């Protein structure tokens, strides 16, 4: 009966109820949609980055002169030094030096540009994953990224050709397809890459006077990366001068992750503040509406009290009202954000399916809970006020 009284009162003042609900709808919508979009975005970023989050990517700094030609790269000696620095920290690691550049490739009659990588056959399996085919051997076998294969209609057995270093056309057979790593990848981004042995790379790009373009270090225990980073830094850089005498630039994926996480948490702090403000406004509106409701129903409260309704029941009745406003408002807010969030996500370039992750959907109960709690808190003072009305005085008001 108490619930039904609360319900009937809300129905009686439909317009006022809807107006006060609107505040909660907007507040919950703000929290939910911003939360969902940023969660979706974070998920996507995490997916992109996490696969390579256990690596250091080393790029060479400083010019070397080999056979009278100026060039940049890692020599065998550099690699030995880096390896010994790594070993000083951990025994559980993989160190993969590789060549990379861009190279035009002819597929049928089309010519496209691809990232090409050359690395030792034995190292391939530690950096990329095959979805079909086999690893390349020798000078005329390559593997291609899944995305690249799809874009150019390639499959295992297809042929691609390059212009080799000595001007001859080198035709190669695609023997495998690599799993996509996403574009935001440290080291080897397979999506639109062609990968082959160092022998193959030398024949179509050259071997850069024996200097590798890059090194990837993988630690089995990612927490050791920071120490490895420091050890290499100490061994390779700033021997004679801290600023100019550097041979290695280290791209630390976990540090980048940290920066990214920090950015995301800042943006989510920002959205939380905006949502909190809108909810505060909603809470003030609901307190106001509830106070009006108490004032209007003072006589009714007096009657209810005089015929034996307990204080706690009056409190309950008004809290039910506030709670109902909160619940219905929050449900509408959540529904609205379920409609709008995917649109925002798609504008930001996310897949529609990003909606269906746990970290996004968790905002449905969170939104409803927050709306409900805010309303109950806003209703607390008016309800308390109603419960503590003097029945005699309350009954004599009109």
């Amino acid at each position, binding site marked *: *009966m108490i619930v039904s*009284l609360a319900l*009937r*009162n809300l129905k*009686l003042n439909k317009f006022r109820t809807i107006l006060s609900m609107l505040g909660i709808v907007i507040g919950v919508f703000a929290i939910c949609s911003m939360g969902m979009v940023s969660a979706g975005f974070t998920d996507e970023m995490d997916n992109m980055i996490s696969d390579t989050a256990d690596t250091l990517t080393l790029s060479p700094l400083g010019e070397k002169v080999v056979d009278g030609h100026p060039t940049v790269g890692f020599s065998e000696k550099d690699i030995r030094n880096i390896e010994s620095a790594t070993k000083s920290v951990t025994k559980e690691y993989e160190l993969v030096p590789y060549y990379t550049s861009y190279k035009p490739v002819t597929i049928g009659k089309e010519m496209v540009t691809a990232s090409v990588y050359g690395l030792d056959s034995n190292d391939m399996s530690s950096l990329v994953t095959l979805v079909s085919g086999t690893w390349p051997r020798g000078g005329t076998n390559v593997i291609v990224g899944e995305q690249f294969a799809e874009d150019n209609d390639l499959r295992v057995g297809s042929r691609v050709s390059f212009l080799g270093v000595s001007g001859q056309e080198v035709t190669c057979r695609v023997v495998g397809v690599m799993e996509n790593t996403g574009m935001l990848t440290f080291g080897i981004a397979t999506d639109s890459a062609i990968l082959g042995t160092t022998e193959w790379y030398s024949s179509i790009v050259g071997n850069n006077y024996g200097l590798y373009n890059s090194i990837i270090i993988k630690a089995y225990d990612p927490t050791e990366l920071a120490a490895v980073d420091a050890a290499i830094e100490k061994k390779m850089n700033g021997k004679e001068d801290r600023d100019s005498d550097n041979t290695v630039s280290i791209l630390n994926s976990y540090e980048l992750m940290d920066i990214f996480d920090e950015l995301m948490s800042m943006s989510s702090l920002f959205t939380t503040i905006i949502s909190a403000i809108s909810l505060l406004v909603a809470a003030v509106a609901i307190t106001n509406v509830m106070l009006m409701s108490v004032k209007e129903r003072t006589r*009714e409260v007096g*009657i*209810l*009290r*005089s*015929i*034996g*309704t*307990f*204080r706690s*029941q009056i409190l309950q009745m008004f809290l039910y009202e506030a709670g109902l406003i909160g619940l219905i408002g929050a449900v509408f807010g959540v529904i609205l954000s379920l409609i709008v969030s995917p649109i925002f996500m798609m504008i930001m370039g996310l897949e529609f399916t990003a909606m269906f992750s746990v970290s996004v959907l968790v905002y449905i109960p969170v939104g409803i809970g927050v709306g409900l709690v805010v309303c109950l808190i806003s209703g607390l003072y008016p309800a308390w006020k109603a419960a503590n009305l003097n*029945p*005699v005085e309350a*009954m004599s008001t009109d």
Partner: protein
Amino acid sequence: MDDAPVVELIDVSKVYHMKAGDVYALNHVNFSVKRGEFVAIMGPSGSGKSTLMNMIGCLDVPTSGTIKINGVSTTDMSDDELTEHRLNTIGFIFQKFNLISLLTAYENVEYPLILKYGQRDHSERVKKLLTMVGFTEDRMQHTPYELSGGQQQRVSIARALANDPTFLLCDEPTGNLDSKMSTQIMEILSDLHKQGRTLVMVTHNPETAEYADRVIVIRDGEIVGEE
């Protein structure tokens, strides 16, 4: 316990502290109401009879003196205990009917039962009570706004009887009714008295007071006569 008066006032005073000085709304009042009695409390407005009624109705407690309801003093009762008395021991009938406008006639009578038992009435008690005060089944679903004053007061009598109270407390039960309606309402109250109900009625109307066994006259917070 059964011999104890239903209502007993012992040296009851109620003082309102005003800036201009203390106002004695009630000044050392003594009287009691026995089981089965119909007592009218008469007096002009401002005589203190509303204050008296509020205290008998457990809506207020005296400044000094003791009010015993069924032999138990209300002075030190908590708000919840007073509320429980209002729910179980006292049946209120007000001048302005005081029905809950959001509820139908039926639900108004059912309300105290729900408060007491925590569930809807399945015993047909509500229907019996409403039939007793002359309500037809279809009119039970009307809201107070759709009922005349006399009909509203009938609902209010049925509501007062819902929890089978020890006594009925009527505050000017005919004050808002025309003379024909007044007679009908007083007939119902008189019948209830004949069935053994205890009634305490506050009124300033000598005609309605005639239905009572005993009339207590109050003026300026003091009992000035009893007949």
